[in-house]
């Protein structure tokens, strides 16, 4: 008999939620598992670097409660990928703790697998020395020194560690850093669905209802997979997929529209066909899976770059605005001398940026418009230094000097900045940077991942 299997994506990100009715309906209609992605690198390196999860915790718990309740009732597994937003050990622990709380509060009993994807620096250092790490392009320079100075590394797992947890009987799998596609491809491949079908379906499902024609709110998405292709149809009757909306989603957040690189191989969608089979459902077939010679996993790392303090201010005086570049340039010169005099810090010891909204705040150096065109600008004075106290010490020297910095057209003391807040300065906290964009060649796809299974 030809195997068919129904995959359900609860939503695009575990913290954003879904319509409860949609999920309940989809499980009742025979979903074989519920998956959900809980993270991304989109919001920058902070979460990986700091170890803080992205909440809200209550929202995440609400969504997990509904998913677990329905899945346990139906006897199907739940698979969460990239726990806690970055998939490091603290993020995994945070998510596992919520699952345990739910089990206790609701008297649920199930087998929980937690897959740790955080890589100890010593292990990665050995891999580096053995030449197992290869940079992708572009990549930050990773060497023994930067590797040792980094805060945290994770490896992005493919389908294999999740499959191992499922084979061990786990009903709820919480994975650390995990390919979005692997969340949805792991179980179907285990059940005999071909990889080209399972991986392409995973790509369409990973953002939940994002592949519909008009997404009204975050919601579920379902796909039925078979030997030749899959049919994607939103469980919520108010939403609909069209061939265009599904095909377009294959492009989303992907640098190459035809080649989706995953651990273990590449999904080639060049020959994929997208056909409407109703006004809400789309049949997808024809993609290829090309297995790679070597099995690699992507490595992500974050390093501390410093501590940030900022000031937000408005500038409305047209005489300043018409010479804003020169004003900020001469202000910088005066300020650098003051900081050197009073704090004994040379300009190389900190980073001072003037971010000018109304000029090039959004695009920075890539902004083609060179003149301020509006009647006011928003200025962020951005200081990053070696500690929060140093950044907080530098900041008032900058904003107070800038407040009264002279321009030739005005005589007497002027006050150039409109501060919306008192105090004007805000301590933002630590700043991180991504310090690796590398792949790690493995002999065994499960090797760097450690799975703990508990009976709750």
């Amino acid at each position, binding site marked *: 008999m030809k195997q068919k299997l129904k995959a359900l994506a609860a939503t695009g990100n575990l913290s954003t939620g879904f319509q409860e009715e949609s999920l309940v309906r989809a499980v009742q209609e025979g979903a074989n598992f519920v998956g959900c992605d809980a993270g991304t*690198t*989109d*919001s*920058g*390196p*902070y979460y990986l670097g700091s170890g803080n999860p992205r909440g809200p915790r209550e929202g995440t718990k609400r969504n997990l409660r509904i998913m677990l309740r329905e899945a346990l009732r139906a006897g199907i597994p739940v698979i969460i990928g990239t726990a806690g937003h970055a998939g490091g050990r603290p993020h995994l622990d945070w998510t596992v703790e919520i699952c345990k709380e739910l089990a206790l509060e609701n008297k649920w009993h199930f087998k929980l697998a937690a897959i740790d994807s955080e890589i100890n620096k010593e292990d990665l250092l050995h891999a580096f020395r053995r030449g197992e790490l290869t940079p*992708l*392009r*572009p*990549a*930050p320079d990773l060497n023994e020194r930067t590797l040792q100075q980094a805060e945290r590394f994770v490896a992005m797992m493919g389908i294999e560690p999740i499959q191992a947890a499922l084979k061990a009987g786990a009903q709820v799998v919480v994975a650390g850093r995990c390919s979005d596609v692997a969340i949805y491809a792991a179980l179907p491949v285990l059940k005999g669905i071909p990889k080209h079908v399972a991986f392409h379906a995973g790509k369409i499902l990973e953002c939940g209802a994002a592949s519909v024609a008009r997404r009204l709110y975050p919601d579920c998405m379902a796909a039925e997979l078979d030997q030749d292709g899959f049919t994607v149809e939103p469980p919520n009757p108010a939403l609909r997929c069209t061939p*265009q909306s599904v*095909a*377009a989603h294959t*492009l*989303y*957040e*992907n*640098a*190459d*529209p*035809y080649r989706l690189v995953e651990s273990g191989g590449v999904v080639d969608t060049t020959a994929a066909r997208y056909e409407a089979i109703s006004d809400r459902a789309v049949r997808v077939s024809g993609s290829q899976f090309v297995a790679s010679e070597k099995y690699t996993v992507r490595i992500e790392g974050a390093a501390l*770059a*410093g501590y940030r303090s900022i000031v937000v201010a408005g500038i409305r005086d047209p005489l300043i605005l018409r010479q804003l570049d020169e004003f900020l340039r001469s202000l910088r010169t005066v300020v650098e001398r003051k900081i050197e005099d009073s704090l004994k810090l040379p300009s190389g010891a900190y*980073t001072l*940026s003037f*971010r000018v909204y109304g000029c*090039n*705040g*959004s*695009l*920075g*150096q*890539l*902004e*083609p418009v060179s003149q301020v065109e509006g009647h006011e600008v928003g200025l962020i004075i951005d200081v*990053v230094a070696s500690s929060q106290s140093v950044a907080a010490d530098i900041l008032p020297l900058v904003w107070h000097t800038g407040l009264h910095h002279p321009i030739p057209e005005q005589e007497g003391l002027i006050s150039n900045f409109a501060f919306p807040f008192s105090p004007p300065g805000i301590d933002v906290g630590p*700043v*991180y*940077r*991504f310090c690796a*964009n590398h792949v790690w060649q493995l002999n065994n796809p499960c090797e760097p991942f450690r799975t703990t299974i508990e009976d709750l």
Partner: protein
Amino acid sequence: MKELWEFTKLIRSKNAGPFELTFDIMFKDADCFDQVMKSGGLSAETIAKLYKTEPSQVRFFVIKQLLTVKISIPRRVFSGDMRDTDVYGGQFHGPLVRMPVE
């Protein structure tokens, strides 16, 4: 002269991971698609110039079936780095929207 947005139903930018930016330009219909493609205004060269990079760094995909052009370039400043201005990369398409089409 018209501007690019008058031919499209979607112009967006987004991170493709923290180290690359990707732009999706979806046209309203085949006429709009043909008109812009024939104008020659949208190419790896014009994108390289607009985004201050080399044409060899620009990956330029024409997806006729979807009436879509997809473009990917490396980020000059990685997402969330100290001097980054757009962590999600969601506003880098701004200069494309009013690009003149002759």
